[in-house]
């Protein structure tokens, strides 16, 4: 832990895992023995996005990675690229600040109708592959551009920006484009594909980044 320990160190735990276990089960089993071990966890089944860690070199959700699919020696690290709070808990503030910076909310200026705003299935389909992002930070924590520059918006915020720009109901498209033009993000991405590989939900932030660039340059 920063401030308490002189330098980071590895702690080794030996335990017998059951066939159905995921990494989170293993962490819980260790925590029962060693109450001081700390990590984030909430839903336990891949929807809340709280438990992203680095397992044998790959950023993934601890609650989804099956122990049986890993070798006997498993190395679990906190998500890279973020400052460490303690053990496996990192400070995701940069991700949250970036998300806030892209205005993660639908903006409308016209008075809404009495019933719903209409959106055709073809228009709604444009949000698929975007709105499912769970802010877990696995992608941003895998992004070398972010490692080098914490101000870089990063894939989590950019996929969210794309989700809002693509929403047929949104009435602030120009404002959004302006924000994206001026923030470090869209043009700093080097297409390294780490984000695509890291996303536990199978989303493609790079595709979203390309779509945003296209929207700004072409439309």
């Amino acid at each position, binding site marked *: 832990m920063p401030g308490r320990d002189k330098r980071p160190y590895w702690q080794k735990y030996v335990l017998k895992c059951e066939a159905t276990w995921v990494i989170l089960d293993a962490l819980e089993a260790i925590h029962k023995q060693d109450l001081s071990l700390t990590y984030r966890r909430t839903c336990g089944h891949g929807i809340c*996005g*709280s438990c992203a860690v680095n397992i044998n070199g790959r950023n993934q959700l601890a609650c989804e990675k099956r122990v049986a699919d890993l070798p006997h020696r498993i190395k679990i690290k906190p998500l890279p690229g973020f400052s460490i709070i303690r053990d496996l808990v990192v400070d995701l503030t940069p991700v949250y600040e970036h998300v806030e910076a892209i205005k993660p909310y639908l903006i409308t200026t016209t008075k809404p109708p009495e019933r719903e705003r209409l959106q055709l299935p073809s228009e709604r389909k444009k949000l698929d592959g975007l709105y499912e992002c769970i802010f877990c930070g696995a992608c941003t924590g895998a992004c070398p551009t972010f490692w080098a520059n914490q101000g870089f918006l990063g894939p989590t915020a950019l996929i969210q920006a794309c989700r809002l720009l693509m929403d047929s109901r949104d009435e602030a498209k120009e404002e959004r484009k302006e924000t994206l033009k001026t923030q470090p993000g869209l043009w700093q991405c080097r297409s390294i594909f780490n984000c695509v590989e890291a996303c536990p939900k199978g989303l493609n932030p790079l595709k979203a980044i390309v779509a945003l660039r296209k929207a700004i340059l072409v439309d």
Partner: protein
Amino acid sequence: MIKHRHQIIIVGAGIAGLVAALEAAQTGNDVAVVSKVFPTHSHSVAAQGGTAAALGNMEPDSWEWHFYDTVKGSHFLGDQDAQALFCKEAIETAYFLEHIGVPFSRTEDGRILQRHFGGHYSESGKGAPVRRTCLAADRIGQAILYTLFGQCLRFKVKFYSEFLVTHILLQDEGCSGVMAWDIVHGEMHTFQGKLTLLATGGCSRLFNISTNSAINTGDGMGMTLAAGLPLEDMEFIQFHPTGLYPWGFLISEGVRGEGGYLLNQNAERFMKVYAPDKLELAPRDIVSRAIQREIEAGQSIEGKPYVYLDITHLPEQLIKEKLPQIREMALKFAGIDPKKQPIPVAPAAHYSMGGIPINIDCEVLADGKKVIVPRLFAAGECACVSIHGANRLGSNSTMECAVFGRRAGRRMAKIAKRLNFLPLPEGQIKEGLGEINALLNRSPKTSLAEVREALREGMTKNCGILREESCLRAQLELIHNLKTAYQGIGLKGIPNEYNLALQEAVELKHMLNLSKAIVQCALARKESRGAHYRTDFPTTDEKDWLRHTLVFMKEGEYELDYKPVVITKFEPEERRF
């Protein structure tokens, strides 16, 4: 100790808390949301199938039909004034959610798509099942929660994430705020507010097989009990029929709504025995008990305690478009492609129908009946208004959070301006801090995890789907012993920064108090109604038990009281499906 001051303090960042925050912040109030997790980690995110509103987008529907279904679903224990209001306001609330950006799935002509869910029919129960559940594929919770979180940022709601509220500060003049432990930095803070809303969610983690997130330990309910205030109808715990076996992860009712079958080891659709008319789409209490009966009769799969949920007959495209998350979970956890193989499922603790008694403006009731606790509000699963009575209908919970969170937000916005801050009760703060410090400074004698697991296993075994007096008494005995064991829990030597064990120890204190309340209420209710089923009293007793239970904790002992059910339109009838 660091001190904060905001006009409105909201505890909990799920749908109820965020709707309230948004509503109050939009009118210019200074609102703070204090949550033990980052807002998007709140358990609302796990809601799948959809949210109920009689929009009539698929076929004719009306709020009156929704009202009848909610009353019958609640096994006539819901308060009909609140239920009618809920069903009416659900419609405008669904449009409100759409207007602020929720990415609902759509009909061909662009309206909100709706699907079948259990217990929702046309013609006040006499007609065909009606598609009333508004969906966003099978991710309604995520779709609503993220939308609300974004809008709250827009209206400058102040978020205190990873702050564990440990005590409600309550004096004669009302609630003056809360104390909360800053999890990241490991220190106590006070939050002084003119008004405080508890939107702390449910307590299904009291049971060892549960669909709920690890955080659903009933903190708000526990703090309310500890503050000398009552809880209502705590014996009614919903067991969702289809938790993914063996974990208990939620497999949405939407799967049956889209046409899924429940099968026993003989590949029989056994629901035809238990609900010959409505089959798999009967209310949840009925389906869960049916599965439990099949398991106990030796009709489950390969002698293990689960049955099959079969959607292999549904088109692959439908599964991918409307149930993508279910498909992903089946593949990732069980290694099953639901198009090719049936999904193993068993009932899992899912939802608390009971909670902190409130009126329709979400004001907390000191006697559980009429007397208001000044400046204290509650909404969402932690509250009981009571919409759900003895059994909640699927897709009514997210909508309850939205409808009543909105009402709470509006009410608080209206009265905050004319109030002053109350002084904080220094004695209570000192006492609360002493409690936390005692845990931190004590050397451990007992294992925190062992106490918690013994409690959770006991609750499932002794106070689960089927209950009887001897088991309930055994559970009281167990809780008594575990409360003694709790005194031996110590956290000495663990750094204060991100001390997960401290959070667990505080939660466990609430869990023990709350479990005892639940078991006491269940023991007293000598009838079967909705989710509360007594094998020693298997029938519903309208004469003696058509009433709400209230439970108070006084110096560790529990007192029960009762109040009548509000009936405005529908008299109790035999509940057949």
